[in-house]
């Protein structure tokens, strides 16, 4: 199988990807290292508020609520969406897709190779976040979370980026319009987060099950380690939205 597109996608994006990975890891490290000072503040919050925000005073609880609960997934989503929307819709709008598709490459192969490059990127970002966490684990008082538990959460972080990347790539494959892709995925992102955050409070637990965030962090990998079922749901979701987008891509006109 010809993997020229995959290789090219990665080499073209190597600088941007390095920036993303270093930036995300740095942000995660900065927030996580404030744990010792935040621990006391967290402990002083009212019980009900802590409950609502899914936080407690443990290291896992703090990371769950702040670093891995808000900042990192947001960055992962933005990475997934921006990379996924550029992958096909961006190329199509600029007219570059024509040239690639005039070569002996099937549309399915093109989409899959771009998706694989995106997945490798998501993995690289998460790997660096994991290494950053290990680096400050002692100094920031996070030793109650094992390296495996950090890894479990980082794997889910990568999968979250892949889900939103697949959504953006699949929509781009189906529609070919980058602005539509960005607007739709941003809406889906906000709705997913909201659904996950408020589901418990409005007594609609079922709502959380519709949100990728639930599978990303609901199983509390920082406390419970690998959540294979949740990971599988994310992976299957990604593959499904990608497959639907590619099916439509194969049937429509490009350009």
């Amino acid at each position: 199988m010809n993997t020229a597109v995959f290789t090219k996608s990665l080499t073209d994006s190597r600088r941007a990807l390095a920036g993303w990975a270093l930036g995300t890891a740095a942000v995660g490290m900065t927030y996580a290292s404030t744990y010792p000072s935040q621990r006391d503040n967290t402990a002083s919050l009212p019980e009900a508020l802590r409950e609502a925000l899914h936080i407690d005073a443990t290291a896992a609880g703090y990371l769950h609520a702040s670093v891995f609960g808000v900042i990192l997934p947001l960055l992962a989503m933005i990475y997934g969406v921006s990379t996924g929307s550029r992958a096909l819709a961006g190329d199509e709008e600029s007219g570059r897709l024509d040239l690639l598709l005039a070569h002996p490459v099937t549309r399915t192969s093109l989409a899959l190779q771009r998706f694989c490059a995106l997945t490798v990127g998501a993995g690289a970002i998460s790997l660096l976040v994991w290494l950053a966490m290990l680096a400050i684990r002692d100094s920031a008082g996070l030793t109650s979370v094992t390296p495996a538990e950090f890894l479990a959460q980082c794997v889910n972080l990568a999968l979250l980026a892949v889900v939103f990347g697949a959504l953006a790539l699949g929509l781009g494959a189906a529609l070919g319009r980058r602005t539509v892709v960005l607007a739709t995925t941003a809406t889906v992102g906000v709705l997913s987060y909201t659904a996950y955050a408020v589901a418990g409070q409005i007594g609609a637990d079922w709502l959380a099950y519709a949100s990728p965030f639930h599978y990303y962090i609901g199983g509390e990998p920082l406390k419970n380690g690998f959540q294979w079922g949740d990971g599988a749901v994310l992976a299957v979701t990604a593959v499904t939205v990608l497959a639907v987008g590619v099916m439509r891509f194969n049937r429509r006109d490009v350009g």
Partner: protein
Amino acid sequence: MENVIELRELTKRYGARRGLAGLTLEVRTGEVFGFLGPNGAGKSTTIRLLLDLIRPTSGTATVLGLSPRAQGTELRARTGYLAGDFVCDGRQNVRGYLRFLGALRGGVPQQHIDDLADRLGLDQNTRIRKLSKGNRQKVGLVQAFMHRPELLVLDEPTTGLDPLVQQTFLDLVTETAADGRTVFMSSHVMSEVEAVADRVGIIRDGRLAALDTVAHLRAGAVRDVEVTFETPVPQHAFADLPGADRLGLDITRTTLSGQVVGSPDALIKALAGYSVTGLRATEPALEEVFHSYYAGAEAAPRTSPSTAA
């Protein structure tokens, strides 16, 4: 296989706009086919259908005996394509980008790329983004020719090229045809294709308006002539020639000027009876033949809400 491209009643509608309306056309193996028409007549639509970038509303296309939809990968492996508005990734230098496009085809000998770039005067060390329009077009030409495909599909290939490079391009086309390979090139200017094309098809409003060999078109074409004589000739010396109404003697009856349609044979024979001191005849202007087919054509495809519903 006699025909490289076979189009049967090929129709493409874009919503209410009509791109192609039942185009039937055959392109033979080893010929250079000029595909002419005004902007918006359906040339690019046809070409994009051949490569399976878009799909026909009805009708069929066969390229190299293959179906664009079902056997697109093999079809495109054996075809070189240059888009009308060649757009490529600008971040890389020319060499790296051409190597990537070669890799998409499973590798192309660097020698082929270098030879083409040298002939066209393309510096491979420049970043594509920094290239002028003409130089970017050269990148497009190199990528279309570099794998020596059986069929070249070129949409307005000479756009932005200076006359010298245009000549190099025409040489490339001639060499390709001499190899027994086929070139299908579109243009909106006849003069671009008449030097190399064996046959031309003229498309108008999504239909084939005319199809003929260049030689035949030329036979019906018009030449401007001017003949000067040593001594005045009789007033009615050329009055019996076919098409004589387009020729006229000046007041001194020593200069005959005007136009000859088709073969100049009769005129030459009539001239032989006099002492000629000068003779000037222009190349037949196929452009005019072409314009006669254009007459009445609209610049853009017609909107036909009644048929598109």
